[in-house]
């Protein structure tokens, strides 16, 4: 019996409505007009109130005519680039990789404002088909360049039956106050294996939004890692769906937040069929007045017996003013399952610090060592050495870049 109060629209919402109308997305425009951007009353946005946080929307992105330096170089990786929503020319793909292009967004329709906006604004999707085992790491370099722009882009990845690959997507660009809305759709065929990493290295002025949708097939094995280490406001919404018997997912994520930053990883996982497993693991490190949010929901469908899922979130506070907020959720409709979640939060262990310092290690170095140790669990499972090294570089860069 919710009484609908007329929503007062802010500057950001009005700009969005105009932009939506200019691309003919009247239904989405209507939706924003009626409901506005999601507030904390919308559960998925409980800690990331877009109505409050998004003050302004820059003009829609035009084709980029300049390029900043790549944010992350991975030795030996095959490079693809999307700038301001447009797919750029690329070198010949390694054997087993087919690169293509499709119109519109790759995401499935769902009741989520950012998904609707991506659907309205993403003009094309980069498509990647992996036909067999690909050893070369594939890097998709997604940029927003030039003056402040509102850009949407989309990637569709299909890993064929029995194929395997490692893909890293990086988000960066110029220092302007962009709003980026990025989409990735991933489908894994029977017994396929994929490591999929997304790293936000945008400038502090940027608002970064990403939606990652995963469909994990029979016997397939998915490992993902989301790293937020750039934008002032970052949110990645991950939707893994375990659709075939024996499907497994290691969905992981890391929020590295400094003073004034707000990073949010939200996972909505669905175990749709019997005998699927997942081990989501998320970590938060916050310093200054940084704010890290991790929400993770595990839904086990009515007949998905023998599901084994364990969600874990660990937060580390490096300052007294930091905030770490988490909401792990279980929604379980099958009785023969083992599901759990844990969430802990605290500061660095004083005993361990004392141990290191009593052995002559300076405080800062001891702290760095412990943080590295805390994060090894996320980086260690990544097999490609050059890639793991690049990720360690991102973490060290954050640790040293106070």
């Amino acid at each position, binding site marked *: 019996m919710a009484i609908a109060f007329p929503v007062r629209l802010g500057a950001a919402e009005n700009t969005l409505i105009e932009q939506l109308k200019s691309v003919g997305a009247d239904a989405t425009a209507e939706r924003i007009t009626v409901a506005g951007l999601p507030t904390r009353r919308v559960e998925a946005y409980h800690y990331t109130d877009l109505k409050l946080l998004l003050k302004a929307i820059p003009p829609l992105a035009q084709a980029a005519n300049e390029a900043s330096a790549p944010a992350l170089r991975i030795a030996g990786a095959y490079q693809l680039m999307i700038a301001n929503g447009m797919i750029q020319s690329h070198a010949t793909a390694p054997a087993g990789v087919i690169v293509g292009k499709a119109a519109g967004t790759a995401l499935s329709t769902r009741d989520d404002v950012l998904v609707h906006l991506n659907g309205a604004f993403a003009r094309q999707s980069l498509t990647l088909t992996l036909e067999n085992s690909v050893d070369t790491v594939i890097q998709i370099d997604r940029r927003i360049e030039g003056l402040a722009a509102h850009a949407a882009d989309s990637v569709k990845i299909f890993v064929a039956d029995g194929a395997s690959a490692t893909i890293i997507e990086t988000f960066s660009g110029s220092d302007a106050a962009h709003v980026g809305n990025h989409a990735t759709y991933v489908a894994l065929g029977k017994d396929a294996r994929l490591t999929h990493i997304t790293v936000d290295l945008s400038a502090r002025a940027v608002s970064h939004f990403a939606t990652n949708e995963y469909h994990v097939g029979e016997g397939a094995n998915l490992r993902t890692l989301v790293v937020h280490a750039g934008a002032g406001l970052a949110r990645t919404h991950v939707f893994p769906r375990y659709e075939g018997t024996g499907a497994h997912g290691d969905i992981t994520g890391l929020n590295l937040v400094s003073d004034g930053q707000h990073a949010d990883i939200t996972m909505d996982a669905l175990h749709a069929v019997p005998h699927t497993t997942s081990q989501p693991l998320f970590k938060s490190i916050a310093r200054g007045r940084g704010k890290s949010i991790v929400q993770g929901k595990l839904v086990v469908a009515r007949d998905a017996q023998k599901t084994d899922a364990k969600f874990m979130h660990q937060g580390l506070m490096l300052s*007294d003013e930091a905030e*770490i907020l*988490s909401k792990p*959720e*279980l929604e379980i409709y099958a009785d023969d399952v*083992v599901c*759990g979640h844990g969430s*802990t*939060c*605290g500061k660095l262990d004083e005993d361990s610090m004392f141990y290191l310092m009593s052995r002559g290690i300076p405080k800062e170095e001891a702290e760095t060592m412990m943080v590295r140790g805390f994060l090894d669990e996320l980086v260690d499972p990544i097999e490609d050495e050059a890639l793991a090294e690049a990720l360690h570089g991102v973490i060290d860069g954050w640790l040293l870049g106070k």
Partner: protein
Amino acid sequence: MANYDDIPTLKENIDRATVDSVRSLDVDKYKYGFETIIESDMAPKGLSEDTVRFISAKKNEPQWMLDWRLEAYARFLTLSEPTWAKVHYPAIDLQDMYYYAAPKSTPAPTSLDEVDPALLAMYDKLGIPLREREILAGVERPNVAVDAVMDSVSVVTTFREELSKVGIIFCSISEAIREYPEMIQKYLASVVPVSDNYYATLNSAVFTDGSFVYIPKGVRCPMELSTYFRINEKKTGQFERTLIIAEADSYVSYLEGCTAPMRDESQLHAAVVELVAMDNAEIKYSTVQNWYPGDKDGKGGIYNFVTKRGDCRGANSKISWTQVETGSAITWKYPSCILRGDGSRGEFYSIAISNGRQQVDSGTKMIHLGKNTSSRIIAKGIAAGFSDNTYRGQVSAHAKATNARNFTQCDSLLIGDKCGAHTVPYIESRNGTAVFEHEATTSKISDDQMFYCQQRGLSEEDAVALIVNGFVRDVLQHLPMEFMVETQKLIAISLEGSVG
């Protein structure tokens, strides 16, 4: 007329009744579902400003109380029903119920002899000891002071004189409004503000009765205090209001029980309970909630929308909530602690059992505001039949809550494949020195455990009851003795027929 000196004790009666219902499997398991025919004085049907005035007049309330209620009613009109809980029910028609129903009897009975015998017989049947006895059947047992509330009025409060000797006030809230207005004005709505939420605001406007407890400084309450709530009339809503104040260095343990007749239509129960603990005071609040849960198809049953909150106002104060939730068609209840005083401590122990078409959305909030505050949450949810059982909780540490500590464990057990168990914790740390730990698991009773028990000669149902009792033991041990035995039996009853 029955001899009231022979009223069986709570424990004994329940033992016998439990055994009976366990034996007769075909009979509906809810044994408090009878209706007592007592002539009642009712308010006109529906909710309006006149209803609020009617209730206030019936209670002979002073003008300030009426004004307070009217203000709450005005606020209520601006609010809409919350929809975030994981419960589904047809819209409640607030105009199609009575807000006041009182058994007609002598205006103010001074002794039990003046109370309607039919009423006493009802409490007799429920096993509530209204006679003040010290010794029963040669066995000395601790006394329990009872405030019995039926529909909208408090029928009787026992042991008042003995309690007043040590300065404790234990009476109905209506009486307290007349006798101790300065205390009510100071504390009422100081923990749950008038417009805290939809149901609390409705309660503020139309609350009818409940208990008032005041424990003076340094007093350890010599006996357990309890309130027994009974809904009897058709189409009435019960809006109880309880206020407990524990002054510095005091201690009180308070029990609450509730039942209602079996009816096809659902009835609304919207209570507000406020606890205030000053320096070093401790309040232990235990509930066995056994409202009528509706029949196996989900017809009828009580809608239980309750706001319970404790304020650890003083340094090193402690509030502990223990609840056993087995009844109600819908439970919407989050007994919470505001840990304001430095070094204060909040505890929440809960067992929520749902069967049939029951829907439970329950949990707690631990709001850490003071330094060195700690809290502990242990919640066990058991879902059977077609029910949904949700734990929803919040733990938050304010920026000034240095060294806040929390440990949370919530486990769910599913019995059958048509039910659901859900966990929704909000964990908010805004202080670097806060340490929070949260764990949750969901599982079913393993075949190995069942095999082990059955191999040793236990029936399937006994085995389930045994395993479940083990599962909830962490919570049970925090219940006062009076409740422990009853609760163990309740668990067996609620789960009966859910095996397989």
